[in-house]
C-alpha cells in the first residue's frame, strides 16, 4: 500500500504535466492513502513571504487561499522545519496550542508536512480531517517520502522557469543589440548622405543670398528668395544634426571624471535654467567616478538629454541630476518634471528623425544613444506619464582612475 503510492508519485514526477496538475494529482493520491478528507499544497513565495494555495483535493469545509509567511500552521512548520500533527476536540475552534489558523475551522485533526530539501523550504502539505485521524508510523514515513518527491517537482519547475526567463532575457538583449547596430548603420548612412547634400545646399543658400542682394529692397522677387533662404536654413540645421551623428566611429577614450563632465555641461545651461525657472537639484557622488570616455562626445550626449529636459519644462520645473557607482558601473541619472513621454511614442524615441517637436530634427536622442553605445554603455528610460522622464546613462567604471589633485 505505502509502496504503491510512492511508486505512483514517482511516476507522476516523471510525467510531463505542469506543476499545479502534478500537485493536484499528488493531493488526490494522498487522500486515497491516508485518513484525511482535505489535502492542500501551499507554496511559499519567498519574495512576498506568502503561502499560496497551489493545488487542492478533497472536501471543502474551510479552505484558506493564502497564509502570511509566519501565519497559522504553515508558518509554524516553516519555523520548526518539521511536520506537525494536530488534534483538537472542538471542531469549531480555530486555535491549536496557541496558534490561530482559520483553516482549522470545522476540522478535528490536521497533519502539516514541510516541503523542503537540504537548502530550501518550498511550502507545506496540509491534510485535514473532521474526525480523529490515526496515521501509522509506516504511513508517516511514506508521507515524508512523498513530500520529498513533491519538493523535487517544485524545484524542477522553478529551475525550468528560471531557465526560460534567462532564455527570454537573452533573446531580448540580442534583439536590442541588433536594433542598435541597425541604428548605427543607419546613422552612418545618414551622415554620408548629409555630407554630400551639404555643399550643394550651401551653394543654393549662398547664391540665393547673393540674388537677394542684387534684387535690392522692394523688389517683388524678394519674398521668393527669402523663402528659399528659410528652407535652406532648415535643411542645414537638419544636416548639422545628422553629421553630429558621429560618422567616425572612433572614440578617443581617455580617463576622466564623470562628475566633472556633467558639471561642465550643466554650467553651459545656467542661463537657460534661469530663463525657464528651472530648479536644478544635484546629487553627485562625493568621490570622483573614473570613466574612460571621449569627453567631447560624452558632453554632446548629456547636452542633448539636458536640452530635452529643458524643452519639456519651458514653464518651470525641477531637474534632478545624480551620479553614482552602481554594481560596478558608473551611472548618471537626469530626471525632469516635464510631464513625461506619451506612452504611444515611447517606443520610437531613439529612432532617427522621430520627433514630436515642431522644429525638432529627431536626432538628439539617437545621437546620444549612439555615443553611449560607442562607449560600451547603455541608456535607460523611466517614463512616468504626467510626471516626468528619467534618463539613466550607465558607463563602464574605471577603477584605477585617480582624479587630478
Amino acid at each position, binding site marked *: 500500500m505505502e509502496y504503491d503510492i510512492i511508486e505512483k508519485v514517482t511516476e507522476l514526477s516523471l510525467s510531463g504535466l505542469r506543476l499545479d496538475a502534478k500537485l493536484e494529482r499528488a493531493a488526490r493520491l494522498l487522500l486515497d492513502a491516508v485518513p484525511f478528507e482535505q489535502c492542500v499544497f501551499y507554496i511559499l513565495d519567498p519574495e512576498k513571504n506568502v503561502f499560496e494555495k497551489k493545488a487542492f483535493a478533497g472536501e471543502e469545509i474551510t479552505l484558506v487561499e493564502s497564509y502570511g509567511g509566519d501565519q497559522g500552521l504553515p508558518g509554524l512548520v516553516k519555523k520548526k522545519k518539521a511536520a506537525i500533527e494536530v488534534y483538537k476536540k472542538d471542531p469549531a475552534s480555530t486555535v491549536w496550542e496557541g496558534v490561530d489558523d482559520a483553516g482549522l475551522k470545522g476540522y478535528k485533526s490536521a497533519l502539516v508536512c514541510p516541503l523542503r530539501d537540504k537548502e530550501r523550504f518550498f511550502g507545506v502539505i496540509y491534510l485535514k480531517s473532521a474526525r480523529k485521524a490515526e496515521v501509522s508510523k509506516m504511513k508517516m514515513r511514506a508521507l515524508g517520502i512523498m513530500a520529498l518527491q513533491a519538493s523535487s517537482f517544485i524545484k524542477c519547475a522553478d529551475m525550468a522557469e528560471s531557465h526560460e526567463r534567462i532564455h527570454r532575457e537573452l533573446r531580448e538583449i540580442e534583439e536590442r543589440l541588433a536594433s542598435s547596430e541597425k541604428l548605427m548603420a543607419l546613422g552612418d548612412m545618414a551622415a554620408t548622405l548629409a555630407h554630400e547634400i551639404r555643399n550643394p545646399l*550651401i551653394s543654393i543658400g549662398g547664391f540665393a543670398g547673393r540674388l537677394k542682394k542684387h534684387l535690392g529692397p522692394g523688389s517683388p522677387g524678394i519674398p521668393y528668395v527669402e523663402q528659399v533662404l528659410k528652407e535652406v536654413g532648415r535643411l*542645414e540645421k537638419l544636416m548639422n544634426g545628422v553629421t553630429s551623428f558621429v560618422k567616425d566611429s572612433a572614440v578617443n577614450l581617455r580617463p576622466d571624471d564623470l562628475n566633472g563632465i556633467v558639471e561642465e555641461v550643466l554650467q553651459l545651461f545656467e542661463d537657460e535654467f534661469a530663463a525657464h525657472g528651472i530648479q536644478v537639484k544635484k546629487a553627485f557622488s562625493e568621490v570622483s567616478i573614473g570613466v574612460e570616455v571621449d569627453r567631447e562626445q560624452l558632453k554632446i550626449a548629456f547636452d542633448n538629454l539636458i536640452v530635452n529636459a529643458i524643452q519639456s519644462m519651458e514653464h518651470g520645473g525641477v531637474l534632478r541630476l545624480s551620479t553614482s557607482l552602481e554594481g560596478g558601473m558608473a551611472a548618471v541619472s537626469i530626471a525632469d518634471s516635464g510631464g513625461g513621454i506619451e506612452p504611444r511614442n515611447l517606443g520610437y524615441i531613439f529612432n532617427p528623425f522621430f520627433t514630436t517637436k515642431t522644429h525638432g530634427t529627431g536626432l538628439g536622442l539617437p545621437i546620444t544613444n549612439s555615443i553611449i553605445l560607442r562607449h560600451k554603455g547603455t541608456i535607460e528610460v523611466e517614463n512616468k506619464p504626467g510626471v516626468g522622464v528619467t534618463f539613466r546613462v550607465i558607463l563602464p567604471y574605471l577603477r584605477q582612475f585617480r582624479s587630478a589633485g
Partner: protein
Amino acid sequence: MKKRILVVDDEEGLRLLYKEELEDEGWDVELAASGEESLEKLEGDAIDLVLLDIKMPGMDGVEVLRRVKERWKDLPVILCTAYPHYKHEFGTWASDAYVIKSSDLTELKQTIKDILGKRQ
C-alpha cells in the same frame, strides 16, 4: 593695398560663392581647387590668409594646414568643415580659426575681418 585671401575648396560652386562674397567685402580672392594647387599658389602669390576646406580628395585640409604652418608660420589659416565635432580637435592648435560651413557667411566674414583687421 587690398589683402589677398586664398580659398581652397574642391566644390566649384562654393569657390565661386566665396569669391564673390569676399570680394564684396573688399578683399582680393584667389582660388584653388585642391590641396596640391593651394600649395603651388602659395609659392607664387603673396597671400594674407588661407580659407581651407578640410575634406578634399587627394591632399586634405589637415595635411595642407600642417605644410602651410611648417613653411609660413605666421600665415593665418581658417579651417572650414561640415563636422562640428572637429572643432575641438583642430580649433586649439595650428589653425587660427575654425568655421562650420554654412550658407550664411556672416560668421566667416566676421572671422576674416577679426584676423586680418588685427594685422593692418
